[in-house]
């Protein structure tokens, strides 16, 4: 099977705009959270600074910025007929629903045009696992033999639409979120964009996406499975033939809602990963939705390259049963593989296996 490498990364986050800057911020526990006035209920979030921005769409702006950075690092010609584009987002430009074409298709066309991509883009919109599913889609496009490189870009901007929706579900916390903690009380929303260029070729040691899976709980559209069914099945698929002690860590979804974190603990234990270090990044970025799978994968690659397992900001006391190996402290690792895990509405769960590979 064709190997697929990550050869370029780009990021736009409230705590930094390069992978190195962002890694340093996460290690230092730097966040951009604060309380914002809502409609009318206030909310607590990690949002990007829009001062000085004057274009027609902030969403289009940040997703392009991340994608351009990734393309530049990869050094590819985006206009080649063998370069594909996958966009990951949940609501894109939804804040303009009364006035414009807010379809995800329109957002993808705008991005393709701005990047100079000449092949038709595809949007993967699988709720909170979109970024992970989009990376898997990129891997599959390369393995189909039709593409040499695929740009996978994801972003989310926050809006009245998303915030009031999560408020109506009583899912938001007015305090910093606490993944896996006994006192966790809900999630914080976040803004970011992130992009990875995938390629069938790498001219230096690079991170490889070995494989991935998306599985449904077949249980409920908004409540996670009590048995972690889909998450466990996705893990089982990507870990076939992989020993738990080969993994540096599992970077989980960890939204800090009661049900999500408990569900992930069950899935991790069922998969025999109870001793593998686990971490969640929502305490730094909040829930960045369409960007999350790509952003959290980039930060995880950076951390693994630096020989560390990042701490879980917000965690202090074990709040899931059975327990998982989560810590508020940074830990060392010499391992060169990790799993990225996500879950979302619609009963979807996804897992990707990353491994540092040789040049090819």
């Amino acid at each position, binding site marked *: 099977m064709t190997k697929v490498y990550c050869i370029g990364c780009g990021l736009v986050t409230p705590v930094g705009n390069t992978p190195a800057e962002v890694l340093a911020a996460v290690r230092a526990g730097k966040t951009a959270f604060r309380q914002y006035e809502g409609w009318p209920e206030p909310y607590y979030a990690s949002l990007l600074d829009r001062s000085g921005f004057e274009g027609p769409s902030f969403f289009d702006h940040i997703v392009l910025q991340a994608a351009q950075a990734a393309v530049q690092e990869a050094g590819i010609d985006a206009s080649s007929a063998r370069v594909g584009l996958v966009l990951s987002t949940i609501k894109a430009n939804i804040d303009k629903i009364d006035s414009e074409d807010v379809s995800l298709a329109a957002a993808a066309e705008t991005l393709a045009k701005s990047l100079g991509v000449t092949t038709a883009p595809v949007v993967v919109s699988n709720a909170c696992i979109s970024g992970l599913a989009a990376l898997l889609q990129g891997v599959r496009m390369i393995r189909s033999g039709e593409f040499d490189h695929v740009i996978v870009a994801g972003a989310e901007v926050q809006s009245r639409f998303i915030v009031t929706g999560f408020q109506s579900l009583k899912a938001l916390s007015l305090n910093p979120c606490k993944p896996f903690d006994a006192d966790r009380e809900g999630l914080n929303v976040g803004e970011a964009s992130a992009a990875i260029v995938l390629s069938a070729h790498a001219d230096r040691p690079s991170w490889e996406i070995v494989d991935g899976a998306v599985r449904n709980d077949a249980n*409920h559209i908004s409540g996670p499975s009590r048995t972690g069914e889909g998450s466990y099945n996705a893990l089982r698929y990507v870990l076939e033939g992989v020993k738990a002690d080969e993994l540096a860590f599992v970077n989980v979804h960890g939204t800090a809602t009661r049900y999500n974190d408990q569900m992930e603990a069950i899935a991790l234990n069922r998969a025999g990963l109870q001793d593998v270090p686990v971490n969640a990044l929502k305490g730094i970025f909040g829930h960045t939705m369409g960007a999350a799978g790509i952003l959290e994968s980039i930060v995880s690659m950076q951390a693994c390259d630096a020989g560390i397992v990042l701490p879980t900001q917000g965690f202090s006391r074990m709040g899931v049963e059975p327990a998982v190996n989560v810590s508020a402290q940074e830990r060392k690792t010499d391992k060169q593989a990790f799993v990225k895990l996500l879950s979302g509405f619609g009963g979807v769960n996804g897992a990707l296996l990353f491994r540092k590979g040789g040049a090819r």
Partner: protein
Amino acid sequence: MENLINELKLKVIDALNLDGMTPEDIEDNAPLFGDEGLGLDSIDVLELIVLLEKNYGIRLASPAQGKEVFQSVAVMADYVAKNRAK
């Protein structure tokens, strides 16, 4: 009280899209959640919280409190009568 119970039944049927149900199909004291009774789920609880705020100006703090109030239409009516702001 009987009028309020009937009014609530109509509003619950409408808010939760309970197809083909009439107020007569819902017993005053039958449980609304769980396998017996109407078998409503977590999203329904949240939608009933909206129903109380919209129609009676009552704001519940949490879904957990909702489960107390929404034990049955009779319990709901009692709570609305005591706490309504409109």
